[in-house]
């Protein structure tokens, strides 16, 4: 309910803003919606959105899985951290553009290169977040698990994972947004389809309604996933936390 209200508020702000600033600088919601519908009707929206979502899903999963594992290791094993840290900082601070260009040059303008480049861009931020999470793990619970001879899997699932959950959530949310920002660059530079490609075209044509239509479509998809999937799950997973009085 409140979410809906807040969403309505957003649309209202936008609309008023566009009235004040002028349609040329900020197209009103109906204009963008019309563009969105036109693109949807032609099938281009779904085609491009689909292509991008597939890339996002792949790169995100890859980077989250690998990044979480590395981050966990670096947070727990001091040697791993010492060895990995300079690489991490380097990777963290390599511009997306450079990584993508190099990936395309080495592996060709292929889907694999694109996804790998995106994943490499996201990877270090997942590492950094999960590393903090692993460092903050409670040793008392570890000891408990050792005493009661929890097998590795059980200890991970029931002792470690719930402690990492907030870090995973943070890494996932900000990570998804990062992947999305970078997939656009990757598509701009070397893919023949996808939202990034269309946004590049829209930018060249300086077609702001088109630009917004594609941007907001993705945001809408994420909004729906959040509302329908992630947040109910999160609510369930954090039920044990006492509501503040």
């Amino acid at each position, binding site marked *: 309910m409140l979410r809906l209200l807040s969403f309505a508020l957003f649309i209202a702000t936008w609309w008023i803003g566009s009235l004040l600033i002028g349609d040329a600088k900020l197209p009103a919601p109906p204009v963008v919606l019309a563009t969105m519908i036109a693109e949807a009707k032609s099938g281009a929206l779904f085609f491009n959105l689909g292509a991008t979502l597939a890339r996002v899903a792949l790169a995100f999963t890859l980077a989250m899985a690998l990044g979480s594992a590395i981050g966990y290791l670096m947070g727990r094993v001091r040697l791993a951290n010492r060895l990995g840290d300079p690489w991490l900082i380097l990777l963290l601070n390599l511009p997306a553009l450079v990584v993508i260009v190099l990936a*395309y*040059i080495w592996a060709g303008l*292929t889907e694999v290169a694109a996804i790998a480049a995106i994943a490499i861009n996201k990877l270090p931020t997942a590492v950094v977040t999960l590393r903090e999470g692993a460092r903050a793990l409670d040793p008392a619970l570890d000891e408990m698990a050792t005493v009661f001879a929890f097998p590795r899997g059980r200890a991970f699932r029931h002792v470690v994972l719930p402690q990492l959950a907030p870090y995973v959530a943070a890494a996932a949310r900000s990570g998804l947004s990062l992947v999305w920002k970078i997939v656009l660059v990757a*598509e701009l530079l070397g893919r023949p389809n996808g939202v990034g490609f269309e946004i590049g075209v829209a930018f060249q044509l300086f077609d702001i309604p088109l630009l917004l239509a594609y941007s907001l479509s993705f945001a809408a998809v994420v909004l729906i996933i959040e509302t329908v999937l992630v947040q109910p799950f999160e609510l369930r997973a954090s039920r044990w936390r006492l509501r503040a009085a």
Partner: protein
Amino acid sequence: ATAYSAETIRVASQKTGTLAWELAVIRSHGLDKKANLAIDIIELASPEAGKIALRAGNVDMMVSDWPWVSRERTLGAKLQFYPYSSSLGAVMVPTSSPIRSLADLKGRKLAVAGGAIDKSWLLLQASLKREGIDLKSQSTVVYGAPPLLAAKMLDGEMDATLNYWNFCAALEAKGFRRLAGVEDILPKLGAKGRIAMLGYVFDETWANANQDAVARFIAMTRGAKEILATSDAEWDAIAPLTGAADAATLRAYRDRYREGIPRRPIADEEADARVLYRVLAQIGGRELVGSAADLDSGTFYHAIPGD
């Protein structure tokens, strides 16, 4: 259909670029079949993507400029260039602007598309320098992405813009005044005529191995250019590709495009390129042209029959 399979040429094309228009014409008129070529179009969204594609080996051919090709050659990458378009940028001002000549740009806010090493920008500086004006220090220069600067011009945030020809055409259609085209300043710098800055770029070894196919490709694109040069109806057909918002814009695109079809012998093009190369190097385009003082001699591709 021929008995043997057609040779394939992979071409990188920016979706909003003029090459895409020509390729559409080629397709719709079956010019590729007539040339016995299979044109594999790799659609890309940004101009730089073509360079990546060529370097990564995903395409055989892309469109870029000869200063870059020469620079690459001095760095060891043996690329070659064949003229494709002599459409050049222009300086645009609002209709009512008090700016009457290039010299009036002094002290104004000038939006330069493509950054500090843009060829048109360097040439403009060079020509004004001969009049004793150092535009870089005597006016407020704003660099930025071409579409953004065009939009800024429409807003009135800028006094003038030096932009790519297609954005200039769009501005023209919106009533902006063309202060001067870059081709207008070329003679002052020693060039004999309109020069084709843009051209097809490809690997030298590949071109030598596929001389015949390259020749057929060039002939085929000339055919397409001829159609676009003569048929107005054809422009209506490709209108959606151009992104032209209205008929006026489309007309401006058409006229500027037609002007930009290169028609000079390649030797003349090369001679002018030599001259301009020195100008560019002199004005501080070291970054652009690289360490060599002269245009690399193998830059232009000469194996097209009839040139």
